């Protein structure tokens, strides 16, 4: 059981909270979250899961992509209480026993990152893509990844990494 930090507001009578119980990266989490808390703030500030990044904050760039019940969402514009009874996956939950997830390994092998800020989002959207389309076409990859922006503009190697991950997954 993880006990989220940042509970100061909870004592404030003017802030309404919702009791939630969710599975985050295979661990049960129980918390009382303020209604207006975004999932991104809850993950980063409450649980210190900082893989999901805040960048555009308007669900356009994909840096905050996490999976809720397997579906990709922009954590920046998704309310934390909505994860009640659901499963959340972030990039931190992918590696097992010290071994990188095949998608992570494919990104490393292809050199599919420069500054790395967009990478956790790219990896999570790739996981969503491969769940829907285990052998994606290049067009399907582009359809899923066009909502994830890389400001270093290194898309070619990201594409290579996704194709390689589809081979090994």
């Amino acid at each position, binding site marked *: 059981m993880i006990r989220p930090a940042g509970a100061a507001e909870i004592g404030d009578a*003017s*802030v*309404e909270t*919702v009791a939630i119980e969710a599975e985050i990266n295979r661990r049960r989490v129980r918390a009382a979250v*303020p*209604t*207006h*808390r*975004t999932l991104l703030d809850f993950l980063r500030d409450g649980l210190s899961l900082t893989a999901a990044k805040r960048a555009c*904050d*308007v*669900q*356009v760039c*994909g840096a905050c*992509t996490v999976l809720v019940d397997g*579906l*990709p*969402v*922009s954590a920046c*514009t*998704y*309310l934390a*209480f909505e994860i009640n009874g659901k499963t959340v996956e972030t990039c931190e939950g992918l590696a097992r026993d010290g071994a990188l997830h095949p998608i992570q390994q494919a990104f490393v092998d292809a050199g599919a990152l420069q500054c790395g800020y967009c990478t956790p989002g790219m990896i999570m*959207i790739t996981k*969503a893509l491969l769940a829907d389309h285990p052998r994606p076409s290049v067009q399907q990859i582009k*359809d*899923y990844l*066009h*909502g994830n922006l890389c400001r270093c503009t290194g898309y070619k190697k990201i594409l290579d990494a996704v194709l390689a991950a589809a081979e090994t997954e």
Partner: protein
Amino acid sequence: MLQPFHLHEPATVDEASGILRRLGDEARIYAGGTELLLAMKQGLLRYPHLVNIKRIPLEGISFDETAGRLRIGATTTHRAVERSEVVGGRFPMLASMERHLANVRVRAVGTIGGNLSFAEPHSDLASVLLLYNATATIGGGSGRRTAGIPDLVVDAYTTTLAADELLIEVEVPALPRGAGAAYRKFAFFERPSVGVGAVLVPSAAGDTVEEARVAVGCVGPAPRRVADAETALKGAPLRGTAFERATAEAAAAVRRACDPVDDLYGSAEYKRHLAGVFTQRALVAARDHVAAGGSG
């Protein structure tokens, strides 16, 4: 930064309607939140109360084969529409539009009802539903009523929904047999600046246009059908220079009717030009769809 709000989670339409009536301007319906939460985070909208309607069973897609009507519940996500077999098979223009709406994350969360009720002017959905002559079922208030899309979405961020009403579902009639349909848009990133759709119903002999529907959206405050464009196409041959002439006339009518606004996505003049170009492209694609057997 989102401000704190009180959350209401009604289980029925009546309960939701009662809460909305009681709280008036203090409350707003919340479903997917993809538009609402953005506007609230940016401080453009402020509601002390949000009414989460996702506990009301308003989700789902069904198709009545006899009546040829598709029903989509208000809290159905874009993703569910995009991946629906019946939508893909019988309403391919709708399926294709959904596949290209915003991005995969928005589609996983955003709802049909939210899209229409928020009436964001850059919505693709309202334009496409206009082409199908879809109607909306509205609940709450003093009972159920239905409204065509033009009577629901009337201006930028403005619908005819009363404070205590909510969208229940949209009903989408299938297009006539053999009809070709296409929607084309021009977009930087997520929000299209021009969207034009066309439906061409062929005559029994298959060589002329029996009925034409043309809609333009995203350029102005609300999407609209363009009657002059439809008249220009009615009776026109489906190929040759006469078809090209009719599409040019339709494009001119759309340019006149589209009511563009200047914004960061382009000047009104530029969008007006694009609306014409995209009208012709949509019409050619709809015609090609007719030639390939059509329907939807």
